[in-house]
């Protein structure tokens, strides 16, 4: 009885204000959750690069292996961006008079490096190692998407901690045969085959689920 009397006495304005404030908080939370997490803020990010290099042409149409340029990926934590001189392996003959190639040559002669805008970037407190992934059955396209179909490199997956953990907790869903790691077009026949392939690799290489903090955070 007492509380009903109190409720009638509380002004409707105040209740309305509280309701509005609550709704606002929920909106902020939902907004942040949607817009400020990697799934929205990173996916689709396609910065303009200073050199209009097309992976679609080189890796897709010409079929150049990822490792031709990103040669460090099998031994280093980083998949390196190649030096400008590597382009000249072909381009001192192929399209050597093209304005873009001439600009590249000038950069090499002067010793200036090409400044690429970085697309994939983890925070400093995350230590990701490419070598251990590509040597254990994680394909390039698992994380980077179909790079061989991108004219400008797009951030295809969110690469949030959640997305890394999804694979680390269930590696059989994302592993592929070692000889297919650099094959952007490989697909398992179906989800069942993926699991079979994955589990075989887990057995062969002794892959464990590394889900502890120290795996990535040092």
């Amino acid at each position, binding site marked *: 009885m007492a509380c009903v009397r109190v409720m009638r006495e509380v002004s409707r304005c105040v209740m309305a204000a509280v309701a509005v404030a609550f709704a606002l908080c929920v909106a902020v939370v939902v907004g942040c959750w949607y817009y400020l997490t990697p799934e929205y*803020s*990173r996916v689709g*990010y*396609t*910065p*303009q690069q200073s050199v209009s290099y097309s992976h679609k042409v080189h890796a897709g149409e010409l079929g150049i292996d990822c490792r031709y340029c990103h040669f*460090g990926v*099998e*031994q*280093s*934590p*980083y998949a*390196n*961006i*190649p*030096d*400008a*001189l*590597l382009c000249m392996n072909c381009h001192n003959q192929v399209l050597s008079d093209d304005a873009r190639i001439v600009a590249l040559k000038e*950069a*090499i002669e002067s*010793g*200036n*490096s*090409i*400044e*690429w*805008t*970085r697309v994939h*970037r983890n*925070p*400093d*407190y995350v*230590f990701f*190692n490419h*070598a*251990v992934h590509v*040597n*254990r059955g994680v394909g390039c396209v698992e994380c980077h998407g179909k790079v061989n179909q991108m004219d400008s490199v797009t951030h295809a997956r969110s690469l949030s901690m959640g997305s890394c953990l999804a694979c680390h907790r269930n590696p059989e869903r994302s592993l592929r045969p070692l000889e297919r790691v650099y094959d952007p077009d490989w697909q398992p026949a179906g989800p069942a085959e993926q699991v079979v392939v994955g589990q075989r690799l887990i*057995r*062969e*290489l*002794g892959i*464990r689920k590394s889900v*502890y*903090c*120290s*795996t990535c*955070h*040092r």
Partner: protein
Amino acid sequence: MKVVPEESLPTGDGMPCSGLGHGLGHVGGVCSSDGQYETPDPVTRREFMRVMSASLLLGGIGLSGCRRPVEKAVPFSRLPEGYLHGVPEYFATSMPFRETAIPLLVKSYEGRPIKIEANVEHPDKPSNGDDEAGRIGTTHHAQAAILSLYDPDRATRFTYKGVAVSREEAMSMLKQTGVKFAGLNGKGLSFLLERSGSPSRARLLRIARERFPEARFFVHEPVDFDVHRKAATLLFGVPVRPVYRLEHARRILSIDCDFLGMEEDAHRMIAGFARGRNPRLPRHTMNRVYMVESLFTLTGANADHRLSIPPSRIVLMTMLLFGELGRQIGWARLGSESAGLESALMGRIAGLPDALRGWATACVEDLVEAGSGAVVLAGHRQPVLVHMLAHTMNVVLGSIDHAVKYIEWPESEESPITELAAELNRGGVDTLVILGGNPVYSAPADLDWARTQRKAGTVIRLGEYEDETFPVCDLHLPRAHFLESWGDGVTGDGTVVPVQPLIAPLFGGLTELEVLARLCGLATTNPYDIVRDTLRGIVTEGDFEARWHKFLRDGYLEDSSSKSAGSVKPDLRRIAEAVRSVNPAPEHSEGRGTYEVVIAPDYRLDDGRHANNGWLQELPDPITKITWDNVIVVGPRTAAQLNLRMPSGAMGDYSVPVVRVDVNGRSIDGPVWVLPGVAENTIGLSLGYGRSAAGRVGNGVGYNAYSVRVSKALFIAGGAAIAKTDRMHSVACTQWQSSSEGRAVVREAAHEEYLAKAKLAKGSIVGGSQAKGALYQNPLDRLAETASYQWGMAIDLSLCVGCGACIVACQSENNVPVVGKAEVLRRREMHWMRVDRYYVESLEAARVVWQPMLCQHCEAAPCESVCPVNATSHNDEGLNVMAYNRCVGTRYCSNNCPFKVRRFNYFDYHRRALSGPGIKGQNSSSIARTDFLRWLTRMGPEARPKSELDMLRLLMNPDVTVRMRGVMEKCTFCVQRIEQAKTAGKTRAVSAGGATVPDGAFQTACQQACPAGAIVFGNIKTPRSRVSEAMADPRAYRVLEHLNLRQRVAYLARITNPNPRMLDKSSAETNTPMLDVIRSDGNHEQPQLR
């Protein structure tokens, strides 16, 4: 590929638009349509509103350049051959340390060195014939040397009379000088050099002597170890130098020789000592150390029997020991001249008290019994006579080519600095070339060096810093650090080692070799070619290029160690002469109310060369545990006489009285420190502090002991007075607690007891409370069954000498910041690893025990369960891991930690300038406010300047997060090294089993640096691993075991080896060795143990 974070790019031109949330630094800029950022001018309020709204609009539309902070990836234009980004390279080099060098292997990332390790492939390692391979480590100086490379206060420019000149002008001035003096045959040219063992420098000096026959060469080394060579050469009549192999020594008598600390080749001495000390090696008897000293040094702290006597008595005590040896084995055995020596000695030692005689008799009996396994060492502070007596004792005992070798070593041809002073005062020096060193700071005070040096017509100097000597120079050349120089050196046994640069000179510095070559007018001035030419002279057979490459790859030249001189014969007449003529001045102070002063190099700053090295300034002195200061050390009796009250160390109570010491006609003020174990009537002063031009870290820290040091009494002086002033000085001591308060954290036993018990017992013989079973099953136990590894560490307290190399190694590996004196006063030092020091104490004689303390990685960690955000958790391999980005700074974990090994970043120590001397008027609230402002505006007034930050960034280990304010950090068992080893194994594995990391494939930073090999780390799941065997040792125990924390760090109890005949029956029952207290009135005092 160079990743350029946005914030380090210059503001203004060429910077792509940044979008939202970027910070106030870019207020007023505008994003133009092509993504370029321009700063308009002027910025009015209307303009500001206009452009901000425009930026917001553009940002909202989603131009790719405005979407998120843009970061550039900048690869090479042309890739250096073999370079793979992210994969470290290792280069062998060496750190020159006076006449010898420490062989190193330096890790280089992205073309810059970041971590120094010992070069374990160097052949000079202790081995005792067992299968176990020898190893060496590094000293704390070697570990900290990398910070000096990235020191922004280093000399960066060529100057003439204080004004910057171009490099070409400076080189041409050098050339002209060389040409001028070639014409004059070198008359009027003088060189002032440091000690060096570099064969290339020796070769160039020979050329210089030929080219400038009338030039004079002088040497100045404020703390000179050359006395070892000088005395041996004088005694044996052949140019030799002693090299000690302590692993072959069973009984060591040290006469004021701090061989574990501040003597030459400490890393090698510690390795040999530890090898002989290890109770675990089978078929091995432990060594025993006798120490005779006045101050309390590191070696004294590790000795089994320590005789603490004033410095004036040490010479006499040595004579007594020698006399005792003669008496016990028969003087006739010493040779034909022995009669004269005997009578000379007996005359001098007639009046010594019986207590000293008793000690000497027992000690010498032990040495004689050990025969060729006994060795006697004398310290650099002692006069030549003491050295000669020590070397003769070695010959008599038969330890030549066992524990000590006398190897061929060239004579030193340089004259001392006192002669240069005389020459300068005569006006005979037209041009003085100073190569290294800092004579204005470190020359003896009676030479008045600043004024004296100015008497030279021209002074050319090669200096690492624009320091105290800089204003008195004309042409000043910046010197390259050894990590950026080509050169060579020799290790203690004579093996030639390279000095190989890991980076091009950061500031265009020169090496000594280049300067000498230019002065001599040689065609080859490039130090790389000079070193190759020197090697061509040494390597006469085989393919030179192949041998050169092997020399660089291995870090040493095969089979280049100096030959032993074999059996050497001491010249007893010389000793007899010295005995007759030596004046054991300073006068013995007993009863006269005067004191004796010992001037010793500081353990951390050496002779002052490391004053600007923050890691060494903040490294606590092993015994006093004081940082950022040197102190005037006195014993408890002296303290009582002066009525000194020492602070308790409770918050606010850390000020000590400042005392004035008058000695050699000069006086010095400094904070006093009472140290149990210092001899009566003795005062200890430390060199290396009190600098005025060291740089931003070292200026104004401590008192300058050089100001009372005179050339007649460089190390020991008498007739001193000490008095309290009315000033106080706050002392940043990291460990005020000197007792373990009844908690048995350090366990030790005497050797006899250990042998008896170990034979009978299964399991641990360490008494004390054992952990009882737990009520609840630890869920991590199940994980432990399936994980491939379970990491653990064992620290052998018998081997740990307290040197602190592990502390600096950890700091280097893990990007641990330096906090400055004011923060250390607040107990906020950030060392992840510390070495605790406990006293086993009596009135005057004291013993010290060490315990390295780090995160114990408890399986039932009290810190993990209290973190509100789960920033600290346990992984399946037994490590307690930290996720820094999750930590919100509650500090509950540190509160719960019984070992207090968790360190909190109260401020952003990496960006924040060091507080303490130099930052005035700051109290804690104003510090907090400036810190916040700095965070807001990126660069506040009290932040380190950008030039310094840029340098420090180069030093950081990229494998470890750099922590910011508000984050807790602690030892991680070098998880980055663990993960790197596991990753390397997995990357190469072709089968399930192939991924396992074998034992010993990697080491933690502390384990790798430890010169004694006291730390063992590895997989405790493998029963055969070294750490499993260590933990199964009967001596193993855990600290505070009753708390049932189940730590992964085990300690092996310390075994001491006292001489049973020197033990009193009563103290034998308490299992602690006798503390020998010989009072100066001759009475033998029974110590009262607290």
